[in-house]
């Protein structure tokens, strides 16, 4: 384990006119660490995620990323070409709706293989073998490799999206409500799968969720957001077992017990 963070975020703010998207967010993320960002809809957690993943430019603040060669680069000063390259090699983005992250009209195998082809792999047999391997890692039968994701269930689509993102061995994955809209049993399977993959691959991840159970299961650290600001942050179990901020107490007390 290295002693240097992977991502350093400092005083990041995003305003939509006079409205606050997110304000003055600072944190470090280390390799292999899962950070959950929780809060209700409109709390700014998705704005934050979009800024961090450079899908959105912040109004102020900086975010630096440690590249594979050890060099620190400021995300918002990189050229678009560099950012897009980062996006499809060293990063992943798992959307809540798999249709946003998949090509629905090309086969599962091509969905997984696209990133490989994008970084220059030109050997069909090798690309396909990698796709088969990744499909099995996300528990999709090999014989579905030539089916389009349109023919997949919601849970399968989400697992395919994860495989598509992880195939290039990224070091940082952004997830926006990865289990939203899935049945509870499907959710459990996906969470377990994600946990296993993240541990095996040593990924760092930032997971936006409104579901505290998802946060507890996936993350070691969490930030609680309200009205665009971080109201509490710390170890996930500390925040959930000993919530200090009024809003966090409200959130925790609102969890339905099974």
């Amino acid at each position, binding site marked *: 384990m290295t002693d240097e963070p992977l991502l350093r975020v400092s005083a990041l703010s995003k305003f939509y006119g006079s409205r606050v998207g997110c304000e003055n967010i600072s944190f470090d993320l280390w390799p292999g660490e899962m950070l959950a960002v929780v809060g209700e809809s409109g709390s700014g957690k998705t704005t934050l995620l979009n800024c961090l993943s450079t899908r959105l430019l912040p109004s102020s603040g900086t975010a630096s990323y440690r590249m594979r060669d050890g060099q620190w680069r400021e995300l918002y000063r990189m050229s678009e070409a560099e950012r897009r390259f980062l996006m499809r090699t060293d990063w992943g983005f798992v959307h809540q709706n798999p249709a946003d992250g998949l090509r629905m009209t090309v086969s599962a195998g091509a969905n997984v293989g696209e990133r490989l082809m994008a970084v220059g792999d030109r050997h069909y047999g090798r690309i396909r073998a990698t796709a088969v391997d990744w499909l099995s890692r996300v528990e999709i039968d090999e014989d579905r490799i030539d089916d389009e994701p349109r023919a997949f269930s919601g849970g399968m689509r989400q697992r395919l999206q994860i495989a598509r993102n992880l195939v290039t061995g990224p070091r940082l994955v952004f997830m926006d409500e990865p289990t939203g809209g899935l049945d509870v049993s499907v959710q*459990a*399977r996906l*969470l377990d799968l994600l*946990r296993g993959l993240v541990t095996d691959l040593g990924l760092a991840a930032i997971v936006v969720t409104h579901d505290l159970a998802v946060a507890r299961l996936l993350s*070691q650290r969490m930030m609680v957001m309200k009205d665009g600001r971080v109201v509490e942050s710390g170890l996930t*179990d*500390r925040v959930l077992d*000993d919530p*200090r901020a009024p809003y966090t*107490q409200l959130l925790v007390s609102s969890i339905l017990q099974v």
Partner: protein
Amino acid sequence: MPTPLVVSDVAKSFTMHLRDGVTLPVVAAVSFSIRAGECAVLGGPSGAGKSSILKMLYGNYAVDEGQIIIQHEGGLIDLASASPRTVLAVRRHTIGYVSQFLRTVPRVSALDVVAEPLVERGEDREGAREKARTLLAQLNLPEKLWALPPATFSGGEQQRVNIARGFITEHPILLLDEPTASLDAKNRDVVVDLIAAKKAAGVALLGIFHDLDVRDAVADRVIDVTAFAAGKIAA
């Protein structure tokens, strides 16, 4: 003898924002230390704050005041003010914890639940599983359960998985929160033996045991938590 854990003047209260911000003091001026190879037991009635102290020592509860000094990776750190990342490292390498209840993860087998702390410390999975098998056998968990996720186990079975998970590593400090609460006599004895083995290995143990037989069998010393009652200070 080294003293891997020193607690000094720790205070804890809860502020209930949902109840008009009323503050519930829990403990104050908590001060004690545990030596290596010693098993200390927190004593006192329910609600005295025994569990809260244990949770603060594990970083699970925030600390309002005071210091929790531990020997970690050859240095001394204050857990009360440590960053989340440091707390995680302490949990991985220095402080083990056996809670009252097992928090299960869907679809992970009992064997892997037990082996996980070792894998997190960098041991290879098969070696970790081997140690997990030994411990689960020692705790008399039927072998047919090992491959199943513990979510559907009985309380006693879950507790044994939990104990095995806590005891599998060689953390120099081990916190025990009523590990024997739902065990039968035979398995209680196994736990007593496990604790004795840890003591012999120089581990500093701090526990809560409501079962007086077990407490008498393992405790070198009882720390009376009522001495740290927050009301007393306030009064």
